[in-house]
């Protein structure tokens, strides 16, 4: 049951949560004004790993910025690759071969599953359950091996290029991915039996951390946070990009607005991502993985361009302003967790501290992406 403070805060003290705290996943600091065990006010303090990616973008060529995109959201780096190459392809009018788009979708969805698995383990760890983390990492390891064979790296991927992907897949990738999906399908019932149906987890999440649909709208929340509040918004369906319209998949939406709803959205998304990967593997066409005639020195036409993609945490948008030269004039990176976290201060008012941590975990924070 959700417990909220009943009276006005009278005697308060300040509690510092972070920047080094296991529940803030990285270096986020939250300045909490506490009334006993209840939170009277919460102010997230950002910027501990701010690297000014936007300024870096203005100081290098369009292609040189590609490795930066993998270093913002290190859990779903390929979606960030995808957002950036898509906006530049839009600006420069580059066509991408079909096989490359399929490989982009397959790898990005595998990456999404790995991101959700890590979130799952870490979230349960926040709530005090240790062993699910080890199971989740075991599964995630399989994905990292698969992606390593294709992309050459295990975490900060830089696989997509303007006009295609860097490398074609090897012979083991397709059977390996199919075997992994079969394995994860068998493991999911175990996760649900051990964790989802666990009475302690239910008590910690159900009716805890309500975020209304209106609050999502006012703060610009996207991704599983808004889909846990009954808003059917997924960029892959809403403004279809790449070849997502060719696949049959559902967008899980729960309207309980609590932490449990956000948990269920992500667990269901794992299955949906696996459906997309299976269909893409079935239909994977032959052909080149790079467009011909992509200019070595890229000079997109003057003007500004926007492109959004769905990452594991929500809508990642890139707005580029080009002055027609070989470097971006302005590169704005709209990260989903920045907006999702901004509602935390309002959402956790009057909550018990441990409940607020459950709420924070259900937002799925990745700090390098907030700070950029």
């Amino acid at each position, binding site marked *: 049951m959700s417990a909220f403070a009943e009276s006005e805060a009278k005697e308060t003290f300040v509690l510092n949560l972070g920047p080094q705290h296991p529940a803030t996943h990285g270096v986020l600091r939250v300045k909490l004004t506490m009334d006993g065990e209840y939170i009277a006010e919460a102010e997230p303090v950002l910027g501990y790993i701010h690297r000014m990616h936007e300024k870096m973008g203005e100081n290098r060529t369009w292609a040189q910025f590609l490795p930066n995109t993998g270093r913002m959201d290190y859990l779903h780096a390929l979606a960030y690759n995808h957002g950036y190459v898509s906006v530049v392809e839009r600006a420069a009018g580059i066509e991408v071969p079909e096989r490359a788009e399929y490989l982009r979708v397959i790898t990005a969805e595998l990456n999404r599953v790995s991101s959700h698995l890590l979130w799952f383990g870490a979230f349960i760890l926040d709530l005090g359950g240790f062993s699910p983390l080890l199971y989740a990492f075991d599964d995630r390891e399989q994905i990292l091996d698969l992606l390593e064979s294709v992309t050459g790296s295990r975490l900060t991927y830089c696989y997509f290029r303007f006009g295609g992907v860097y490398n074609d897949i090897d012979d083991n990738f397709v059977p390996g991915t199919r075997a992994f999906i079969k394995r994860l399908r068998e493991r999911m019932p175990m996760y649900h039996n051990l964790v989802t149906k666990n009475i302690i987890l239910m008590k910690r999440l159900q009716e805890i951390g309500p975020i209304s649909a209106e609050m999502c709208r006012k*703060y610009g929340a996207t991704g599983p946070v808004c889909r846990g509040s009954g808003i059917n918004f997924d960029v892959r369906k809403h403004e279809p990009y790449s070849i997502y319209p060719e696949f049959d998949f559902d967008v899980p939406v729960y309207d309980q607005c609590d932490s449990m709803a956000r948990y269920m959205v992500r667990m269901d998304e794992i299955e949906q991502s696996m459906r997309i990967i299976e269909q893409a593997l079935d239909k994977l066409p032959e052909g080149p993985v790079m467009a011909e005639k992509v200019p070595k020195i890229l000079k997109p036409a003057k003007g500004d361009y926007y492109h959004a993609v769905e990452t594991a945490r929500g809508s990642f948008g890139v707005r580029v302003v080009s002055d027609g030269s070989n470097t971006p004039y*302005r590169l704005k990176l709209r990260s989903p967790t920045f907006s999702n976290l901004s509602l935390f201060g309002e959402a956790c008012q009057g909550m018990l501290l441990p409940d607020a941590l459950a709420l924070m975990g259900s937002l799925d924070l990745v700090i390098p992406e907030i*700070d950029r």
Partner: protein
Amino acid sequence: MNRAAIKQKMSAIGAGPVSETDYARKGFALDVQVAPEQLVAAVSVLDAEGFFIEAVTGVDWLGEQAALRKETEAKAAAEAKAKAEAAAAAGEEAPPAAVPAEQGELPEDVLEAVYDFNHYESLCRVTIRTKVVRSKPEVPTISRIYPGANWHERETHDFFGITFVGHPYLEPLLLPEDADYHPLLKDFRP
């Protein structure tokens, strides 16, 4: 989302040109230019239509005015040259060289704040732009309409020094708390 209705409401509040853009090419559907004092009214229109806020982007247009003048001058010079050549080819006496027009002071360069809004139900990304002079960059806050704009405005203030008038807490968000520089300005030197 009814684009025509939004266009009509925007012109009702006196917003500048509202253009429909090619979504596939640009990534947004409506492009609205407003003066800073019309910003709150324009954002209220979108709020009433159920839009959510995506991002606030600052752009520094330093050197734009000088570049524009240079472009006009080059054009005028090219025209004069073409005229002279045409006259020479016709065997006429070359017309007297045009006296360069008296150049006044360059108008001041501007900072631009770009607001992106999107809708959960239908695909309609609306971009609102407003421009302010670099020496007095003041834009009214929209954080009373969209609390989510609070952080976006603080970030834009960090990087560009744009003052969001009426903002409840315009402290550095991503930069250190004592930062007195704005790194995304084009004349910023570390």
